[in-house]
């Protein structure tokens, strides 16, 4: 089994003892097939129990271990050491306040997620016989991709607009609103529109596509944002140019 000496340069910050963040070097013997999270766990177990970070599933589905790895937002459990020949710099996700070390404060995202009403607002009452709503595979396919968001927030760390305008609702929350808007069972688009079509909603996006590039689940938030923009534009034209037309 091949091993390798890996140099990690990890951002440390403890609000109780540090004036400001600093970097700490750890040199650890790692197995070739390890991911960055394995290396951090090795440090935590054998070198420095004070290092703090979030993690759980180690299979890219719980969304806990988002961090900046050599300046890019990544899931530490799916970022392989073999792709990083040199010193690996590990920092907390950009654009979020640091709570401690690699742990960020995610209150902003949690609040925005709730604001876009990411739950089914039924178009029609559920079938009276207690059965399921019918939904064809084609109807499912229209929104399935947007259901895959694991709330890891890599897209917020990558988004230049969110960095500049913290009020921007952001890629993941808009994608999840769009996910319900596109669901054949849902009739809540008008209710969600207040949030996502507002100035801090979809219009802040300048479509750099960075969100989709970093998304570990291939949700493609940029596509969701563009679809929302187009639909909102159509709404505007309908309202202002064709007041007789129904929605």
């Amino acid at each position, binding site marked *: *089994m091949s091993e390798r000496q890996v140099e990690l340069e990890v951002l440390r910050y*403890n*609000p*109780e*003892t540090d004036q400001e963040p600093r970097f700490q070097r750890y040199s650890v013997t790692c197995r070739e*097939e390890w991911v960055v999270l394995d290396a951090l766990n090795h440090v*935590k*177990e054998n070198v420095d*129990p*004070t*290092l*703090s*970070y*979030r993690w*759980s*599933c*180690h*299979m*890219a*589905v*719980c*969304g*806990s271990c988002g961090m900046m790895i050599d300046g890019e937002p990544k899931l530490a459990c*799916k970022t392989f050491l073999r792709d990083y020949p040199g010193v690996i710099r590990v920092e907390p996700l950009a654009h979020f306040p640091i*709570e*401690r*070390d690699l*742990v960020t*404060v*995610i209150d902003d995202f*949690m609040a925005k*997620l*709730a604001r876009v*009403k*990411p*739950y*089914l607002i*039924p178009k029609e009452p*559920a079938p009276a016989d*207690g*059965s*399921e*709503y*019918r*939904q*064809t*595979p084609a*109807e*499912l396919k229209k*929104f*399935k991709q947007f*259901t*895959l968001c*694991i*709330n890891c927030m890599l897209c917020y760390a990558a988004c230049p607009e969110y960095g500049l305008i913290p009020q921007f609702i952001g890629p993941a929350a808009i994608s*999840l609103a769009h996910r*319900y808007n596109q*669901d054949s*069972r*849902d009739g809540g688009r008008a209710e969600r529109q207040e949030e996502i079509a507002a100035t801090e909603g979809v219009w802040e996006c300048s479509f750099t596509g960075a969100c989709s590039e970093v998304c570990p689940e291939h949700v493609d938030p940029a596509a969701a944002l563009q679809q929302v923009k187009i639909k909102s534009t159509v709404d505007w034209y309908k309202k202002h140019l064709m007041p007789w037309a129904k929605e």
Partner: protein
Amino acid sequence: METVRTDVAIVGAGGAGLRAAIALAQADPQLKIALISKVYPMRSHTCAAEGGAAGVIKPDDSLEHHFNDTVGGGDWLCDQDAVDYLVQEAPKELIQLEHWGCPWSREPDGSVAVRPFGGMKKQRTWFAADKSGFHILHTLFQTSLQFRSIERYDEFYATDLLIDEGRCQGLTAIEMRSGQMRRFQARAVIIAGGGAGRMFPFTTNGAIKTGDGMALAYRAGVPLKDMEFVQYHPTGLPSTGTLLTEACRGEGGVLLNKDGRRFLQDYGMGPETPIGKPVLKTMELGPRDRVSQAFWQEQKKGKMVSTQWGDAMLLDMRHLGEKKINERLPLVRDMSISYMGVDPVTDPVPVRPVVHYMMGGIHTDIRAATPLAGLFAAGECACVSINGANRLGSNSLTELLVFGRRAALSAIEHLQTNPRAGNDSAIGALADAAQARIRALFQRSDGKESVAGLRREMMQTMEQHAGIYRSGAGLVEACRKLGELRRRYGAVVLTDKTNVYNTDLLQVLELGSMLDCAEAVTASGLAREESRGAHQRLDFTTRDDAKFLKHSLAWYSRAEPPRIDYRDVVITKSQPGVRDYSGAHE
């Protein structure tokens, strides 16, 4: 200490906790609900469940079939009244999730699709590709956001239950962000804290699954039931323990030894079925305990493939073709490529059995009530018991929905019959004592044991002596060792003595939970001198219904090993019989 006053406090915000919270909020919007979890809800381990959730929906199926599969799969250690309730409620709960927007996979006519699963006689596993648990969790979490009465306390670690006048009246929890302890004064408490697979070194379980909910109840005097039954899932990646869902085999994947033989036919699960045409309840669709045991036997014969991570069998899915694999098993393909460097479209994937699920847990009755008034439990942390000695795949997601809701309804009944307010000063004193115990950890100066060192020794002990096959001598040694580790835990060092997001402290507390649970596993296993389901003894190789058609109960003792006693299994209509997974069954 700051106090939060609430009607119902829920510990754990995974599938069971969220389902309970929604049921409470819907039943009575005036109820105050505190949903407390050591992680944000969407990080809960429910998200890692892949295959699906069982519930009778198709015309060729029946509740009786689901009942019989579950009871036989559990080697007759299930409480049959509880299984009846499970199978009746299952379709309603799964349809409820559909009504909340869960993106279940569909048939061309728009009805929900089902897939075959191990040990199930009919196709009844509802699925959302191979991320079923993920979608269930997120559907529940997102649905919960519409209820203002659900007050969330994310990243709060529960340390102690507050018990006064013989009933549970709340708990204490540490807010990770500040390190401050909070007292939750509640009229009822529901524990939904998940399993404890992290006692073992090789597990599908995420880092958070450290048995905290189980330990919380156990230390408060509630017994842990049937803890010796630990499920090995047959197909984990040898490198990381990452789960490859049973749906791989449900969709038609086969298991091979190093000679390319489908060896399950040699272990009572034959005759061989045609490739690409899986037959329910036999061969690769046998139950998890039998398949994992067959691996162990075959390994003994030297028939396994050796990898740099140890022996493995081969999971061959190539005949399914790229299109089906992408559509039905996208996560499986991604994981196999990422963590093993093997693409299931072109090559068989090496896999081996891996610790996956605790059949045992907090002793509850069919109402999800524990013997302690005001305390309820649901999900993996609880033992109702519908899983008996071996859980069938896709029953656990169903269980957390059905009994999460049931716990909520029982809590409401409890509130209605117990309107008395608690004694503030008595409860305050209990909370202060809990805080003092944490402070003592910070003040300890003579500690010499490291959390990582003790944890390693615990994991080695469990792996060596409490695995797929066990022996009396091994379990005696494991009990001795765990007793020693529990004593040494009293001298564990806290290196990090700061307050904000102190994961060193968190790990110390989690280790304490795991050691208590581990001791319950080995002590219950030592006392059970028979082989049943997932508990296989090399020195007692057969099932002994005369002596052990009973649930084990492990009772906590601070300084001593747990006391073990027994409780009758509820049998209503299915008398213990032979578990037949040969192709000969019907």
